[in-house]
């Protein structure tokens, strides 16, 4: 079975919400839509206080290159345009909407029929992706239309769809494949057309045999979609590792996947692409897993963007258990710990993961015993222990020479460290310092 060529770890999978079908989360009374839900500059609000908006109406426009449109997830009246604290407590520009009814834009096709044919030209597809505010739903929320505008002089040869879902606990991609296999395949076909590549490869880790079977069966009806079962190893779903696993190619230091002729999209993004292109539905919903060992029940939801963490928790499990130690947005390896549960969800939120107190606590740090486990676990072939020492002693120049910027922050080093040294934290700090140093030199 295919996999990437070095490093990697195997954390406990904990896919306990696998069998929970996707439910629809009801809409709350008030929605707060943040203006930067994506990588890059925030969108500019184009509505004013008192404006009436419909579901799917454009409310934030992308005015710079690295930006994505934001649409209203609900219908109602704009209450105010202000700032709102996001899940990490940082104030972000936001549009507050009072919910009134559930009136959708007329252009959106809400019928359940699956529409397979797409008559649009590649350029039109990319333009429509931009209009619909589609971003990568694998976690980085990179605006999709930028990814699919292949720069001059470069040629895409492979379209790779990331359905590895190598993160523990997360099951939203799995549920999408199980319930919307056909839509996903249409989405993949559209993206394949947009890039003009002969084949698309969907990489699925072998711990999801049902999804592999389902996708293989569905893919037969489509041209040029190949399902690749992958070995269960974290970080199989990291862009560079996935490219390596499927094509055997390597993305060089500081290079983008397109430099190796590859474009990678998440399977959730493919579903969003289908809805955007075939149904004219902008990205206003997330498919989100609510999971955790301590929770009474496990859920997968389709949630309107802007619903707060508290609302989702209240609807799904009532309230957080007494023993809650940590709430994570995303998986255990690369997700972010949430501090502000009153914050609205944003595009790309794939889970609310509740960890018990004991599980969430880090063990005390001790001396490095130079066992080299971090080095052997590193999927990029770097030396985390060395970065730790260099960053601590502020030897930033040397850290750069040892390619600290190659680090993908997957967390394998900290995961495997017997001395519990916060290596990933130290490397992130080091990367920030290296970038600051490079910026200062310019």
């Amino acid at each position, binding site marked *: 079975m295919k996999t990437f060529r070095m490093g990697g770890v195997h954390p406990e999978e904990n896919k306990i919400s696998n069998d929970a079908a996707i439910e629809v989360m009801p809409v709350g009374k008030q929605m707060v839509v943040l203006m930067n839900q994506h990588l890059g500059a925030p969108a500019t609000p184009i509505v004013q206080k008192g404006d009436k908006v419909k579901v799917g109406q454009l409310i934030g426009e992308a005015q710079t290159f690295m930006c994505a449109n934001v649409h209203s997830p609900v219908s109602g009246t704009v209450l105010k345009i202000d700032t709102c604290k996001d899940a*990490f*407590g*940082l*104030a972000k520009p936001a549009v507050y909407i009072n919910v009134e009814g559930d009136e959708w834009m007329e252009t959106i096709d809400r019928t359940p029929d699956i529409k397979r044919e797409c008559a649009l030209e590649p350029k039109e597809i990319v333009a429509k992706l931009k209009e619909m505010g589609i971003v990568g739903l694998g976690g980085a929320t990179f605006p999709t239309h930028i990814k699919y505008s292949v720069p001059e002089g470069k040629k895409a040869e492979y379209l790779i769809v990331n359905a590895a879902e190598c993160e523990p606990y997360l099951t939203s991609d799995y549920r999408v494949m199980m319930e919307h296999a056909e839509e996903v395949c249409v989405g993949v076909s559209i993206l394949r057309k947009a890039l003009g590549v002969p084949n698309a490869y969907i990489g699925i880790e072998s711990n999801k045999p049902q999804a592999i079977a389902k996708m293989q069966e569905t893919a037969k009806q489509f041209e040029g979609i190949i399902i690749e079962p992958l070995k269960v190893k974290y970080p199989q779903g990291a862009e560079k590792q996935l490219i390596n696993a499927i094509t055997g190619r390597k993305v060089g230091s500081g290079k983008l996947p397109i430099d190796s002729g590859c474009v990678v999209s998440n399977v959730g993004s493919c579903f969003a692409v289908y809805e955007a292109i075939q149904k004219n539905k902008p990205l206003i919903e997330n498919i989100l897993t609510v999971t955790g060992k301590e929770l009474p029940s496990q859920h997968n939801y389709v949630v309107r963007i802007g619903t707060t963490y508290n609302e989702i928790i209240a609807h799904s499990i009532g309230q957080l258990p007494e023993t809650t130690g940590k709430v994570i947005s995303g998986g255990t390896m690369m997700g*972010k*710990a949430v*501090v*502000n549960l009153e914050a609205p969800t944003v595009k790309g939120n794939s889970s609310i993961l509740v960890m018990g107190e004991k599980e*969430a*606590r*880090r063990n005390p740090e001790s001396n490095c015993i130079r066992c080299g486990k971090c080095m052997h676990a590193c999927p990029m072939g770097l030396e985390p222990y060395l970065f730790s020492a260099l960053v601590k002693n502020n030897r930033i120049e040397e850290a750069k020479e040892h390619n600290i910027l190659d680090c993908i922050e997957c967390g394998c080093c900290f995961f495997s460290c017997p001395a519990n040294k*916060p290596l990933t*934290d*130290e490397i*992130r*700090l080091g990367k*920030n*310092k290296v970038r600051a140093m490079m910026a200062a030199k310019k």
Partner: protein
Amino acid sequence: MTHDILIAVMVLGALGILFAVVLYFVAQKFKVVEDPLIDEVAEVLPGANCGGCGKAGCRAFAEACVSQGNMEGLRCAPGGDAVAAKISALLGCAVEQGEPQVAVVRCNPANCGDKRRSNYDGLKSCAFQNTVYTGESGCPFGCLGCGDCVAACQFDAIHMDPATGTPVVDADKCTACGACAKACPRRVIELRNKGKKERRVYVSCVNKEKGAVAMKSCANACIGCGKCAKVCPMEAITVVDNLSYIDYKKCIACRKCVTECPTKAIHDVGFPAPAVKPAPKPEAPAAEKVEIPVAEKVEAKL
């Protein structure tokens, strides 16, 4: 036997002489001509290599002084005026006087403990914690309490107060080199003039959020109400972005703003203990006499 010893001594002796001669010529050939003044200046400097002057170290500072010929724009904060005078004497230029300064931590930790919303469990580094989230109190501007400033201090002048989790500056040891201010990712620490009799007044908050939002994370936050700016007789206080700032060059440490501040965000340091207030009565009229005219003036302005 004696013969052997003699040979050994002679061989080693000859080698020694040979190397001495070689060394002498090499030293002559590669002699570096350096202004002896640099050594003299470097001798005067504290030698802590703190980098507070902006140079790579004390020797680089000495080189800069000598090459410039005067002390204009060059100041060794740890050395203070005494060192400046000595260097000026060596260089034969006029003495540049600077106000003595001290590092001031502009964050009010008194209520942070109650308002703690989370428990930070990651790498003990403010610079890193700052990239993760707002910090334990929920204030996105305030002190993070991991002690990057403590680690940066070369003079053992700043320490964490375990009770509050914020740093405390030892004004006697602080040389105002600015290393802590540079290390703080949130720019909470500022260098301010020590003030007459070491008395200073400053706004102990850097939160730029709107009043109501700021109060949520800290009861002692500056809410930008502007009352302090109104009572200030010297117009030393400005309010920008919901945050008040006292210009230490204009401040006369009258402490009107301290009493005026509704959130007790303005701190005074170095004044006689508050025990004066309830204590001896005879002093009270004197104090009133001083205060009344100023208060009237302000009211007249309004």
